[in-house]
């Protein structure tokens, strides 16, 4: 019986020749990553010193800190938190990345997503590093262990294998594919396990599109997601990766908890209905619902393809008067690419409000909704209060549907707009 990629990575970082699901190991994460957030990093820094007498981490290159929430700051207290992070980084020789974008994306750009590496963070959306064959797990408060100890105790998870087949239709994106997986398999299909995803439709996707799916793995109950890295992923990382290690791959006869195959050929744009990420429906079921706010961004969506798709929908049109469309590219690198390709101009001309990269629009710190307002969003989550008032509603849709809804002020199917744009500019 062969091994999964997750088992192989955990064996490597535990100094074992092999590891099986269920084994409890002492694993040394290759990278320990966090963004500064009150209650997490400030507490970890304090506990390291006060509880454990640790003045400095032993191997600073294994750590990385991001400042991506509360950017830009709105209060002096927020700037105090950031300054505490900067000075801890300086004291420890640990890099602090600031104003480069959302950390989960920037961590990939900077090469922390080395194929075959094991990464821990407190936040589960780090799972998107799995796009590059990196096992990246959000461990919440257990992250303290990785700051205090060289090795963390870790139980090797089982893996669920999902193969995606078929072909995506116009106006349907990997964002729809992820929520369709939740609809098909349920919100606990991968509970406590690794979601290993592949198949011809994934291979046909860009890395950006895969990052979207892997980012959201937690809503299947998974502790992370991973792809066996193909040439596309390996080539992207070749110039960037921080470690000189061999990529790892699941064996053909690896032992999976379950295997599923999902054909996406007939998939239509979906909407995830508030207030739970488990509520995937066809967008057509809620089309026409009045919405006042649109958010295109986040660590899940908001990359170049998403921005370009929204620009195609908005081509030659204006968003509805009074509608608030926030477009927040996932990183500065992405923003620069979108600018150089003229995508940002097209969005600005349509009436979008564009900001430099930040996490703040995703959790209601910026662009907060008042009671009774409704949003279409590519943010990570649609639970109550996520984007402002607990009495506002969030419908998760793909980037094209955010743009189409911004035109109409109602939840709208993007496909007619894309078809019209295609007719205008034959490709």
């Amino acid at each position, binding site marked *: 019986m062969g091994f999964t990629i997750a088992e192989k990575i955990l064996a490597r970082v535990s100094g074992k020749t092999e590891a099986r699901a269920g084994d409890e190991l002492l694993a040394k994460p290759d990278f320990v990553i966090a963004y500064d957030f009150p209650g997490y990093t400030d507490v970890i820094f304090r506990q390291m010193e006060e509880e454990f007498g640790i003045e400095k981490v032993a191997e600073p290159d294994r750590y990385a800190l991001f400042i991506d929430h509360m950017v830009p700051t709105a209060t002096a207290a927020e700037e105090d938190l950031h300054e505490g992070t900067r000075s801890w980084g300086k004291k420890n020789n640990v890099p602090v990345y600031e104003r480069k974008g959302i950390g989960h994306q920037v961590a990939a750009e900077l090469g922390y997503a080395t194929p075959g590496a094991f990464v821990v963070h407190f936040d589960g959306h780090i799972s998107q590093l799995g796009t590059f064959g990196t096992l990246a797990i959000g461990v*919440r408060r257990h992250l303290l262990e990785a700051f205090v100890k060289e090795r963390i105790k870790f139980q090797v998870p089982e893996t669920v294998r999902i193969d995606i087949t078929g072909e995506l239709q116009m106006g349907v994106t990997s964002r729809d594919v992820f929520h369709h997986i939740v609809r098909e398999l349920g919100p606990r299909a991968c509970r406590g396990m690794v979601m290993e995803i592949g198949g011809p439709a994934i291979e046909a996707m860009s890395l950006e599109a895969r990052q979207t799916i892997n980012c959201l793995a937690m809503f299947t109950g998974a502790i992370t997601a991973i792809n066996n890295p193909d040439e596309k992923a390996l080539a992207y990382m070749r110039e960037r990766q921080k470690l000189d290690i061999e990529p790892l791959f699941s064996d053909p006869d690896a032992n999976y908890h379950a295997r599923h195959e999902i054909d996406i050929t007939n998939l239509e744009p979906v909407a995830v209905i508030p207030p739970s*990420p488990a509520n995937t429906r066809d967008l057509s079921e809620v089309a026409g619902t009045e919405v006042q706010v649109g958010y295109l961004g986040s660590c899940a969506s908001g990359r170049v393809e998403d921005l370009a798709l929204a620009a195609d929908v908005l081509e030659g049109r204006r968003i509805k008067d009074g509608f608030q469309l926030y477009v927040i590219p996932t990183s500065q690198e992405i923003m620069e690419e979108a600018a150089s390709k003229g995508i940002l101009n097209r969005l600005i001309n349509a009436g979008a409000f564009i900001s430099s990269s930040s996490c703040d629009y995703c959790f209601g710190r910026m662009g907060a909704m008042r009671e009774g307002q409704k949003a279409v969003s590519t943010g990570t989550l649609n639970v109550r209060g996520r984007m402002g008032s607990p009495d506002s509603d969030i419908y998760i849709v793909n980037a094209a549907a955010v743009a189409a809804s911004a035109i109409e002020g109602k939840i709208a199917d993007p496909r007619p707009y894309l078809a019209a744009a295609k007719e205008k500019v034959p490709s």
Partner: protein
Amino acid sequence: MTLANLRGRVAWIFEDEDFDVDQIVGVKNIKIKDPDELAKLCMAADDPDFAEKVQPGDLLVGNHNFGYGHPHYPPMIGMRKLGIGGVIGESFSPGYWRGEIAMGFPQVICPGIIGAVSRWDEIEVDWAAGVLRNLTAGTELPIEPLSESDKQMLEAGGIVGYLHAREGEEA
């Protein structure tokens, strides 16, 4: 060290699968930090006298994938302040599970618990025997064993104690 058995009444049964724990205090209260304030808010929307009825050691019962969504810590800070001794569920969402185990708050996987207990039944979790006993009904169900590190973390009262307990170990 051994883990102390849990014994108390079933203070609440969360019948919903994929239950979002933020609802325990209500999303509008999720940024409150004061444990006393949170304790008063627990389940208040469903049972205004909940805080008065709970006794130290009482337990909560949950359905499948308890803690799904984007779980925050305040609801269970409130529950612990009331004296709730732990949560017994059909199964748990892994993020919620890790978060609460790190706080030293016992979580017990017990397949079949929904339907096997009623509110205010007296129940007991016997870690060593690997069973949950419904002392009111005179029935019992097997519980799933904890991983070694989860067990140690609960014994140590949370992640800080757990890491202190490991101070002697080789790197």
